[in-house]
C-alpha cells in the first residue's frame, strides 16, 4: 500500500465533497444557522408562552356551593364562604356565576377551566367535606387552573385546621405547633452544577452525537462509491494505477473526516446557542462548565465508533448500485442506531460490564457516565475495545466487498416470476431464507404468543392450556409453514410422478438414515452439552444479571405438577425435536449452504437462538443450535439433531421437575474445583466425541 496515494485520494475526495454546494450547505452552513434559530427562537417563544398562560385569568365554576349556603351548621358556613371568598379575591381567577347553564359542556368547550364541586358533607363529627374537581386534561390552561384551585383550597385547609384546633388547645396559635416539619425547609441540592449540566448533556448529547455522526457520514459515504457508480467515474479510478485497498482507505478516511467535521460544527453551534439561551433566561454558565478532560474522554471514545460507522456506510455505498439504493439501505441502519442511541435518554439506564459489549448502546451510556461521574476505565476499555474489534471486522469486510466484482458491479438480480417457475432452486438464497425466517418470527410473536397468553389469567396460569397452545404453536406455526414451503418446491404437476416428488422432498429435508453408531454417541453427549450450556448461561448472567421474574417465567414452562410427565415430555421435548428441527435443520440450512458448511451452521444456529426471543438465552442456544447444525452436516441426516434436541429438552424437564437428585446438582454449583473440573471434563468429552462423529461420518456433507 502506498500512503502517498491514499493521501492524494483523501484530499481529492475532500475537495470534491466540500466543493459541492449542497454538501457544504447541509453539513456546515445549515447547522451554523439552525441551532441559533432553533434554540433561541423556540426558547424565548416558550418562556413567553408559559408566562402568558400563567398570568391569564382562569374561569372557575363552583358547583353545588349555593345549596350549602345559609346552613345552620357553623363550620359548614365557614368553609363554603371562605372558599368562595378566597377564590373570588384571587386576581387571576374569575368565578363563573351563571349557574343555570350546563357548566360541564362549557368546561369541555374551554370557556370554564375547572369546576369545583362540593359533592356532599358528612355532618357527623369530625365533619368531612367531599369535593370533586372537574378539569380538561387535554388543555394546559385547565390543568393550570386546577393546580391553582387546589393550592388555594389546600391553604385554606390549614386555616380550618387551626380553627378546629383552637377549640381544644391554645397551642393552635403557635406556628411551630402547626408546622412541625417546618414548611420553610432549606433546600440543598447536592448535585453540583456540573452534574446538573452533565445530567442534561449526558442524556441528550450521546444521542445527538451519534445521530450527527451517522447523518454527516452518510451524505458523504453515499456519494463516494454509489455516487461514483451513478456518475460512471468509479471505473476511471479502478483502471488507474491505484490498488483497491488504497481507494478504500482514501474514501474511508474521507467519511471519517466528514463525520467528525459534522460533529464539531454542530457541537460548536449548539454550544454557543445553548450559552446564548441560558443567558437569555437569566442563568449563567459560571460553574456549569464540564471539565475539559470529560470532553477529551468523550472524543476518544467517539473515535472508534466514527470508524465503525464509516466502514459500515462505505460498505453499504459499495454494495448499492446507485445513490437512491444506498439511501434506502442506510435508513434502517439509521433507525436502529437511533433507537439504540436513545438509551442514554432513559432514566435509570446505567452502564455495566454487559452493556459495554453492545455497540452504540455502550457508547451512548459511556458518554452519559463520563458526563455525570467521570470516566470509569473498565467501562471505557470494554467499550472502546469491543468497538475496535468490530471496527477491524467492518474494515476487513469493506475491503473484501470492494475487491469483489460481484458486489462492486452488482447487476439487477431480481428474480422474475417466470424464472422462478422454471427453476425453483432459485428460491434457495440467503435473502429469501431471511425473509422466510422473519415471517416465521412474526407468526410466533403475533400469533403464537397470543395463543400462549390464554394460559395466563389474572396472574395464575393454567398448565394444561399452556401445553395445548405450545403444541399448537409448534405444529401450526413452526412445522406446517416449513413443510408447506418444501411442498411448493417439490410439488409435481399433474401427470408427473408424485412419488418421486415426495422422495425428493425427503432427501431435501435430509430425512435419511444414518449410522447407528451416531445414535449411540449423541446420547453420551447430552449431559456434557447441558453442563456447557448451563455454564454459558452463568457467563451471560455475570455480564447481564438475569432478572428474578424472568428466570421464574422461564422455569414456569418446565415446572408445575398439574399434568402427567408424559404430556410435558411430549410437548416440550418431542414436539420441538420434530417441528423446530424440520424448520431449523431441515429447511433453513438449504437457503445458506451454498455459502459453505460452517457459515450455514453458524447462521442457522444464530437464527435458531434469536427465534427463542429471549435475550438471556441467546448465547447458550446459539451454542446448542450450532451443535445441532454440526450434527446435521456430519451425519447428513436430520434424525441425529432431532435426537440431540429431544435429549436436551428432556433433561431440562427433568431438572424443572426436580427429578434429578439434589446431590448431583450441588456438584455443579458455584465455582468450586469440582464444578470446574466437571466443566473441563464435559468440554473434553464434547470436543472428543464430536471429532469422533466427524471422523465416523467421513467429514461434512459435500454441498453441490
Amino acid at each position, binding site marked *: 500500500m*502506498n500512503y*502517498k*496515494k491514499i493521501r*492524494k*485520494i483523501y484530499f*481529492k475526495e475532500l*475537495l*470534491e465533497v466540500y*466543493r*459541492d454546494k449542497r454538501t457544504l450547505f447541509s453539513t456546515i452552513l445549515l447547522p451554523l444557522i439552525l441551532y441559533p434559530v432553533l434554540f433561541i427562537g423556540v426558547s424565548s417563544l416558550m418562556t413567553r408562552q408559559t408566562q402568558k398562560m400563567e398570568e391569564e385569568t382562569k374561569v372557575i365554576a363552583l358547583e353545588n356551593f349555593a345549596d350549602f349556603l345559609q346552613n345552620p351548621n357553623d363550620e359548614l358556613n365557614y368553609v363554603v364562604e371562605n372558599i368562595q371568598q378566597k377564590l373570588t379575591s384571587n386576581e387571576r381567577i374569575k368565578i363563573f356565576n351563571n349557574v343555570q347553564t350546563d357548566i360541564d359542556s362549557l368546561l369541555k368547550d374551554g370557556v370554564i377551566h375547572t369546576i369545583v364541586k362540593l359533592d356532599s358533607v358528612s355532618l357527623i363529627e369530625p365533619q368531612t367535606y367531599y369535593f370533586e374537581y372537574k378539569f380538561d386534561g387535554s388543555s394546559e390552561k385547565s390543568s393550570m387552573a386546577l393546580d391553582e384551585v387546589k393550592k388555594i383550597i389546600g391553604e385554606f385547609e390549614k386555616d380550618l385546621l387551626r380553627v378546629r384546633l383552637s377549640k381544644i388547645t391554645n397551642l393552635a396559635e403557635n406556628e411551630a405547633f402547626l408546622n412541625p416539619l417546618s414548611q420553610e425547609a432549606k433546600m440543598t441540592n447536592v448535585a453540583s452544577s456540573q452534574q446538573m449540566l452533565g445530567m442534561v448533556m449526558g442524556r441528550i448529547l450521546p444521542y445527538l452525537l451519534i445521530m450527527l455522526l451517522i447523518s454527516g457520514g452518510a451524505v458523504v459515504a453515499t456519494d463516494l462509491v454509489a455516487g461514483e457508480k451513478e*456518475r*460512471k*467515474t468509479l*471505473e*476511471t*479510478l*479502478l*483502471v*488507474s*494505477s*491505484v*490498488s483497491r485497498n488504497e481507494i478504500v482507505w482514501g474514501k474511508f478516511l474521507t467519511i471519517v473526516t466528514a463525520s467528525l467535521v459534522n460533529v464539531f460544527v454542530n457541537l460548536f453551534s449548539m454550544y454557543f446557542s445553548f450559552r446564548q439561551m441560558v443567558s437569555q433566561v437569566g442563568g449563567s454558565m459560571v460553574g456549569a462548565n464540564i471539565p475539559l478532560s470529560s470532553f477529551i474522554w468523550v472524543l476518544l471514545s467517539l473515535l472508534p465508533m466514527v470508524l465503525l460507522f464509516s466502514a459500515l456506510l462505505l460498505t453499504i455505498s459499495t454494495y448499492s448500485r446507485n445513490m437512491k439504493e444506498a439511501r434506502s439501505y442506510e435508513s434502517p441502519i439509521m433507525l436502529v442506531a437511533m433507537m439504540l442511541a436513545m438509551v442514554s435518554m432513559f432514566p435509570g439506564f446505567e452502564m455495566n460490564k454487559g452493556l459495554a459489549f453492545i455497540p452504540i448502546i455502550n457508547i451512548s451510556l459511556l458518554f452519559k457516565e463520563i458526563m455525570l461521574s467521570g470516566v470509569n476505565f473498565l467501562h471505557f476499555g470494554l467499550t472502546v475495545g469491543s468497538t475496535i474489534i468490530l471496527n477491524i471486522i467492518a474494515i476487513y469486510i469493506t475491503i473484501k466487498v470492494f475487491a469483489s*466484482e460481484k458486489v462492486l*458491479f452488482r*447487476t*439487477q*438480480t*431480481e*428474480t*422474475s416470476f*417466470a*424464472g422462478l417457475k*422454471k*427453476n425453483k*432452486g*432459485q428460491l434457495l438464497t440467503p435473502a429469501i431464507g431471511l425473509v422466510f425466517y422473519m415471517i416465521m418470527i412474526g407468526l410466533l410473536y403475533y400469533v403464537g404468543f397470543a395463543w400462549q397468553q390464554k394460559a395466563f389469567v389474572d396472574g395464575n396460569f393454567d398448565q394444561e392450556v399452556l401445553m395445548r397452545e405450545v403444541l399448537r404453536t409448534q405444529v401450526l406455526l413452526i412445522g406446517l409453514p416449513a413443510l408447506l414451503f418444501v411442498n411448493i418446491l417439490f410439488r409435481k404437476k399433474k401427470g408427473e410422478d408424485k412419488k418421486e416428488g415426495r422422495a425428493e422432498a425427503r432427501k431435501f429435508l435430509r430425512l435419511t438414515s444414518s449410522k447407528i453408531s451416531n445414535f449411540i454417541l449423541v446420547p453420551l453427549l447430552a449431559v456434557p452439552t447441558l453442563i456447557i450450556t448451563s455454564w454459558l448461561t452463568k457467563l451471560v448472567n455475570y455480564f447481564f444479571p438475569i432478572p428474578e421474574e424472568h428466570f421464574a417465567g422461564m422455569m414456569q414452562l418446565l415446572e408445575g405438577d398439574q399434568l402427567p410427565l408424559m404430556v410435558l415430555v411430549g410437548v416440550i421435548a418431542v414436539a420441538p425435536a420434530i417441528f423446530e428441527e424440520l424448520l431449523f435443520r431441515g429447511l433453513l440450512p438449504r437457503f445458506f449452504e451454498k455459502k459453505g458448511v460452517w457459515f450455514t451452521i453458524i447462521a442457522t444456529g444464530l437464527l435458531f437462538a434469536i427465534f427463542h426471543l429471549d435475550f438471556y438465552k441467546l448465547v447458550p442456544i446459539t451454542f446448542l443450535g450450532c451443535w445441532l447444525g454440526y450434527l446435521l452436516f456430519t451425519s447428513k441426516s436430520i434424525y441425529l439433531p432431532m435426537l440431540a434436541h429431544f435429549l436436551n429438552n428432556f433433561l431440562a424437564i427433568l431438572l424443572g421437575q426436580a427429578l434429578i437428585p439434589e446431590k448431583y446438582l450441588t456438584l455443579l454449583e458455584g465455582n468450586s474445583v469440582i464444578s470446574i473440573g466437571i466443566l473441563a471434563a464435559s468440554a473434553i468429552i464434547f470436543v472428543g466425541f464430536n471429532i469422533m462423529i466427524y471422523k465416523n461420518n467421513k467429514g461434512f456433507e459435500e454441498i453441490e
Partner: protein
Amino acid sequence: MIEVKNLTKQFTQKDGEMFTAVDNVSFHVNKGEIVCLLGVNGAGKTTTMRILSTVFEPTSGTAEIEGYDIIKEGHDVRRNLGFLSGDTGLYTRLKVREFLRYFGDLYGLERSQTNARIEEMANMLDMQEFLDKKIDFLSTGMRQKVSIVRSIIHNPPVMILDEPTSGLDILTARNIVSFIKRSKEEGKSVLFSTHIMREAERLADRIVLIHQGRILTEGSLEKLREETQLLDLDDIFVYFVNKMTDEEVAENEL
C-alpha cells in the same frame, strides 16, 4: 504488447442462468500496431476490454499486457495501460487541470512531469482554452479529449480505447483519429473498438471481428478482402456472421 489467451467471461443473468459474454477469445496486438475490435452492439467488445483493464476478472483464460498477467499482476498492468471506455467518466466537480493532475498523482508522476504532459497534450488536442474550466461546463467533445489525456497522462506503452469516437462531431473525431495514428508512430500498441466499419478501415492494421462473444476471424483488411472476395467491410462482416450461424446450425443438427 497485448496477448489475449482463451479469455472467457460469464455473467449470471436475471433468471439465474449463465450468459457467456466473451467466449474463448484469443488475439494479440504488437508494438507499434493498431488493432480494431469490430462488432455490433452487445458483441462483447467492452467486456473484453474491461477484463484487460483489470476491472473484471475473467471466468477463465487470461491475458498479458507488456508481459504482465492481468490476474496476478494487476498493478503493473494498470501502470502500463491507458484505458478509456464509455464507463470511465470524469469528476465533473473538478477543473480540467485539477482532474488531470489528480490522475498524474495516482500514477505516481512528479508534478513537473504531469504539468509538461498536460501542456503537450493540450496543444496537440487543442484544449488550451478550457484547461481551467470546471468539467461540468464542458461539451461532449471537450470531455472526450479530457478523457483521452487522462488515460495517457502517464505515457503508457499500451492503449485500449473503447469506442473512442462515439457520439463526437467530425472535427473532434478526426482529431482523435490522428492522435491514435501518432501514438502508433511513437511505438505504442493500440487496441480500439468500434461498430463503425469506416473507422476500422481507415485506422486498423489488423481487424478482429467479434460476434456474440466469439471471434469470427482476424486479419488485415487486405487479407479479409482476399479471403471473401468482397470489397466492403460491411459485406465482409455479414459474410462471417452468416458463416458462423450456418456452422452453428450444422453443429446442432449433428
